[in-house]
C-alpha cells in the first residue's frame, strides 16, 4: 500500500474572497459543475454566433502541462482559446487574467474564479514569486494555462510586443508552448463596443515550441518573447503571406539555433 498521499486543498483556511484570488485555489464539486456548464455554454455560443473554426487542432498536446499563447485584442480571446480543448481538461485549464481587472471587485472575482477558473496576474507588482508559483503549479499539477504575452488588450487590433515576464516562467522547462493566432476576435468585440457582433472567428493553432535549453536569465526570457511573437505572427494573415513564397516553416528557423 502507498504512503498517505493526500493533502488538504491548497486554499484551505482562506476566506472566499482570498480563495478566489489565490494561485493555490482548487476546484471542488460545485466549481467543477460550474466550469462544465460555463464552458459548454461558451462552446455552443461560439459555434452558433461566431461560427468558430479551429485550424491546426492536431497541434494541441494531448495531456497537460501545456501553455496556449495568443494575440490579445478582445475579451472573447480567452473563451475562444479554451473552447477547442478537450472537455475532460476543463478543471485543469486556467486562463491567466489581469488581477486589477478581474480580481478587485468581489462579484467579478467570484465569476472569474468559479466560472472561468482564472488565476490572477498582478501586472504592476508581479514579482518572481508569483511567476514561480504559477510555474510550479503548471508542472506539478499538471495543468494548462491560457496566456496573453502582450500583457494587455490591443486597442487597435495590431499585435503589441510580447513581454519577457512570460519567459521567466517558461525558460528551462520542458512544457510545450502552443502559439495560436486569433482571427476575428477584434472585429467581433472591439474595445469600444459592449456586445459581441456576429463576426466569424478562426483560431490558427501552430506547432508547440519548447524552451528547455534556453537559459533562465534576462537574455533567454527576451529571446522567448521574441520567438513566441514571431511564431504567433507567422500564423496570422501577415505571416502566411510572407511564408508562402518560400514555403519554409519560418517559425522553426530561429528556434533551431537555440536548441543547437
Amino acid at each position, binding site marked *: 500500500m502507498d504512503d498517505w498521499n*493526500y493533502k*488538504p*486543498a491548497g486554499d484551505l*483556511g482562506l476566506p472566499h474572497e482570498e480563495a478566489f484570488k489565490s494561485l493555490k485555489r482548487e476546484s471542488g*464539486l460545485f466549481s*467543477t459543475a460550474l466550469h462544465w456548464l460555463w464552458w459548454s455554454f461558451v462552446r455552443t455560443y461560439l459555434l452558433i454566433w461566431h461560427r468558430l473554426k479551429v485550424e491546426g487542432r492536431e497541434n494541441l498536446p494531448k495531456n497537460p502541462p501545456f501553455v496556449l499563447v495568443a494575440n490579445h485584442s478582445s475579451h472573447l480571446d480567452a473563451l475562444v482559446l479554451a473552447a477547442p480543448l478537450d472537455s475532460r481538461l476543463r478543471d485543469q485549464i486556467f486562463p491567466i487574467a489581469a488581477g486589477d481587472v478581474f480580481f478587485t471587485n468581489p462579484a467579478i472575482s467570484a465569476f472569474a474564479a468559479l466560472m472561468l477558473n482564472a488565476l490572477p496576474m498582478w501586472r504592476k507588482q508581479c514579482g518572481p514569486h508569483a511567476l514561480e508559483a504559477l510555474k510550479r503549479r503548471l508542472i506539478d499539477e499538471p495543468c494548462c494555462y491560457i496566456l496573453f504575452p502582450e500583457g494587455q488588450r490591443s486597442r487597435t487590433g495590431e499585435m503589441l510586443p510580447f513581454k519577457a515576464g512570460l519567459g521567466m516562467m517558461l525558460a528551462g522547462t520542458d512544457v510545450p508552448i502552443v502559439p495560436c493566432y486569433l482571427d476575428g476576435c477584434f472585429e467581433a468585440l472591439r474595445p469600444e463596443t459592449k456586445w459581441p457582433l456576429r463576426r466569424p472567428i478562426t483560431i490558427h493553432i501552430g506547432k508547440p515550441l519548447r524552451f528547455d535549453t534556453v537559459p533562465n536569465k534576462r537574455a533567454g526570457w527576451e529571446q522567448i518573447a521574441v520567438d513566441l511573437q514571431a511564431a504567433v505572427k507567422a500564423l496570422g494573415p501577415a505571416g502566411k503571406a510572407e511564408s508562402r513564397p518560400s514555403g519554409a516553416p519560418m517559425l522553426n528557423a530561429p528556434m533551431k539555433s537555440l536548441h543547437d
Partner: protein
Amino acid sequence: MSTNERLFNPAHAFEHPVTCWVTVGLVIALAISPLIIRFLAATGRVSDAHRQELWIRWRSWLIMTPLLIGPILLGAAWTILGVGILSLLCYREYSRATGLFREKVISLTIVLGIILITLSTFDNWYRLFMALTPLTIVMILTVALFADRPKGYIQRTALGVLGFVLFGHGLGHLGHLANDDNYRPLILMVLVSAEMNDIFAYLAGKTFGRIPLCPHTSPKKTVAGSLGGLILTTALVMFLGQYVFEGTVLAHWYHLLTLGIVISVVGQLGDLMFSSIKRDLGIKDFDVTIPGHGGLLDRFDSIVPIAAVVFHYVNYFVGVGSDEPVRIWSTFT
C-alpha cells in the same frame, strides 16, 4: 398533530415547555453576553486580544443561533432540509481537508448519497435510510474502479466511506429525529446539551484543570474539564429530559442518567475524533466558515456521533416516529 402539520406548520412551535425554555434561554444568553464581555473587559479579566475574540464569537453565534433554531421551530421539513445542508457542508470541509475532493466521482457519489439520505428521512422511510449506507459504500467502491488506477484505491475509498458514514449516515440521524411527533424539544435538547457540554468542559477546565487529558490529541483539554462537563451536562440532560420524555419509559431517572452520561461522553469523544483527524492532517481548523470558531466541523464535531447514539437509544426504548406514517410520499395507493 398530523404529518403535514409536523412537517410544515410552525403553529405548534411553542407547545412544549422545553422548546419555549430553550428558545427564551438562547435569546437571553445572546442578549446578556455583550454585558458579560464588557464586564470582563472593564475589570481587566481578559486581554484586549481575547476580548476581540469573544466579540467575534458572539457575533457568529448571533447569526448561527437563528439558523439552527429557525428551521426546528418552522417545521420538520425545514429541520430535515437544514440537516441535509449541514451534512453537505460538513462533507465539503472534510473532503477539502483530507484532499478527497480531488476524487470527483467518489465525491459526487457521496453527495448523491447524502441527498438520498435526506429524501428518505423526509419520506420517513427508515428502511431506505438504513439501506443507503451499505448501498452507498458499495457504490463508492464501484465508481472508484472506473479510473482503472488500483494504486491508492484503499485510501480513496476508505476516505470516502468514512466521510459518508460520518456526515451522511451519522449526521443524518439528527434529521431522522425530526420524524418524531415530539421532535422539537428532542432535537433542541440534543443540540443544546452538545454545545453546553463543550462550554461546561471549557469552564471547568479553566477553573480546576491541571492534568492534561490527552496532550497529543488535544493539548488544552484537562481531566477536570472533562469531568466537569460530564457532571454538568448529565444534570442538564436529566433536567430537560424529564419533560422531553414525559409519559414514556425514558422519563425514569436511570434512563435520564444514562442518556446524560452517554451524551456527554460521546460528545467529548466526538470532539477528540475530529481533533485526531486534524492532527493527522496537520491542520489547525477545518475552515474559516464561522469567524472565531473555525469551520462548521470545528463547532459541530460532537453532534456527529451524538446524533446517532441518541437516536438509537430513544429508538430502542420508545421508538422514533413510530406513530407516524412511514413512506409518506413514496407510497401510491
